[in-house]
């Protein structure tokens, strides 16, 4: 019997439209055998949390390059908690100053992938993480 596929929501929050990274990750995870839902652009934390519940995902990947991460991430984590989605793994990819990383992890973000990360590293991280949970 085939294993249940890992379900991932790739989301692009905030006003920024630079979606090259989000699209590459969506495709790389799909090529690695995961079920990927891409939200499209300009999603509010509310829209992302609702989509995560509706799609019953194991992982949420946020692509943020605009500097709005310190506003968006805590809002999303709070909403996920309110909706009882405490097991979902939330990842952030994009331009995140190193100084901001500890606070983001504190808020419940599982990992932050900076520019230059290979897509294989992200695939491996998700496999390992989902196997543990």
């Amino acid at each position, binding site marked *: 019997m085939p294993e249940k596929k890992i379900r991932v929501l790739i989301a692009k929050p905030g006003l920024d439209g630079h979606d090259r990274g989000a*699209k590459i990750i969506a495709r790389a995870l799909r090529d690695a055998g995961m079920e990927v839902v891409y939200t499209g652009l300009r999603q509010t934390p509310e829209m992302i949390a609702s989509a995560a519940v509706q799609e019953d995902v194991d992982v949420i990947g946020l692509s943020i390059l605009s500097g*709005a991460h310190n*506003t968006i991430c805590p809002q999303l984590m709070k909403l996920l908690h309110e909706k009882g989605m405490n097991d979902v793994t939330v990842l952030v990819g994009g331009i995140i100053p190193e100084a901001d990383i500890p606070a983001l992890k504190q808020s419940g973000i599982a990992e932050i992938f900076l520019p*230059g990360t290979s897509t294989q590293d992200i695939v491996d991280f998700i496999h390992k993480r989902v196997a543990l949970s």
Partner: protein
Amino acid sequence: MSEQRKGSTQTVPPSEESSAHREPSAQEQAWEKNTLQPALEKNPERQTEFTTISGHPIRRLYTKADLANWDPSRDLGFPGEPPYTRGIHSTMHRSRLWTMRQFAGFGTAEDTNQRFRYLLAQGQTGLSTAFDLPTLMGYDSDHPLSEGEVGKCGVAISSLADMEVLFDKIPLADVTTSMTINSPAAVIWAMYLAVAEKQGADWKEISGTLQNDILKEYIAQKEYIYPPEPSMRLVIDTFEFGVKNTPKFNTISISGYHIREAGSTAIQELAFTLRDGLEYVEWGMHRGLHVDQFVPQLSFFFNAHNDFFEEIAKYRAARRIWHKAMVERYKSKNPRSWALRFHTQTAGCSLTAQQPYNNVVRTAIQALAAVLGGTQSLHTNSLDEAWALPTEFAATIALRTQQIIAHETGVTNTVDPLGGSYFVETLTNEVERGAREYIDRIDAMGGMVAAIERSYPQREIAEASYRYQVAVDKKEKIIVGVNDFVAEEKPLDILQIDETVAHRQAARLKKLRADRSQAEVDRRLNALRAAAKGKENLMPFLYDAVKSYATLGEICDALRDVFGTYEEVAIT
């Protein structure tokens, strides 16, 4: 590497035709037999196939045999004359250097005004304004969707009051200003014209560039508000207004930069940008403007990526394609419409977060390609821009890079120094041919708006971008410091924009709304709405609205009421 070739989105890889017709001279054949073959047996080459960063195949050696059908009098010509392969001016950088125009903007209007004045004091010769995401999307700084984004990626401009501060003590009669704004471009331009008027500058004399290129927003950067039809109407309104009122202002900067940053190949960047250009020309003519009335005010904007010769070939091919299109397709009679003028920015996407000081070197090489390709204006990225907007320290090195190229290297001493190179001329031909194939395909789809609605360019770019990522992940393409030559390092000191910018903006907006005549604002916004429902040129209505200190968000909302908003079909 053949995999890469197979995955290419071009049906016919451009080089195949030329290789098929290649007839090497007796001397070349003898060289292959007597010198090359023994050398290859002893020392095989490092790869079976060599390609540009775009995946375009490159031969070992280029000779006269590659230029069999090349006619220098037809294909190269002389600088300042058709087909402009060698540049649009007869003396190029010997008479006038390119404009050193560093893109800047962060925080509030006061913060950016200070940076502008600093850059001018350092010898920069033109201004270029970066707006923050709320401004680019037509939201005021105090809109709920602006939270976390105010002043982060550029300067926050919510009304004419902010614009007055932005250009305080900067004489708009003397300094040319470029503004990177697209969906709300007409509104921001109206604010700029109002500031110019207040300073006493003559609109007929002021010069600068409005980016105003909505098509590449749908294709690549995705900062759109309205659907394509009304967005195109706004663009053509600015063309029409510019012809009458600001003859020296570039009403658009048709941009390949963002297309390339989204992951396209060099050929795609060139093809989609020029096809966008043709689309604007056709919409302008459809409005009733004569081609030679408004095309001289159209300018272009290209990327300068890492692959040195491919970039140079791209700029040379761009001029040749544009000239031909103007003369043959639109029967233009005015040489000012034929000559493609362009700004260049070095490739932001080539900067690495790792070992960021290496970015100074990358940027210098990219800038050199732009100069050798005959650019009119140039922005060089700062070493820290993979992390944040640049610090003053990093921005200064970026400007100095241009000054070193201009004054120390000697590359400006002669026009088109690479002209006549077997390789550069062959690559120029191949890039031109590849771009023409794309242009023909988009013509067959019914033009660029139709192609965008079918997600055609979006899909082509996404394919190319993924192909490149796979090549990097497999180490077929090396990025120094990222997938090879990796080292441990200390974090860089970067510019941080805090949330006090948003608070200051919110307070300023509150005061603005209290101080202005609300009745007057309402009256002018209603007039704008009524005009938007009809066919009138909207520029005078936008100008009236900004003068009453109606905010950017209020004005864009009035147009949202009439035009609606646009959502793309998300493809991955």
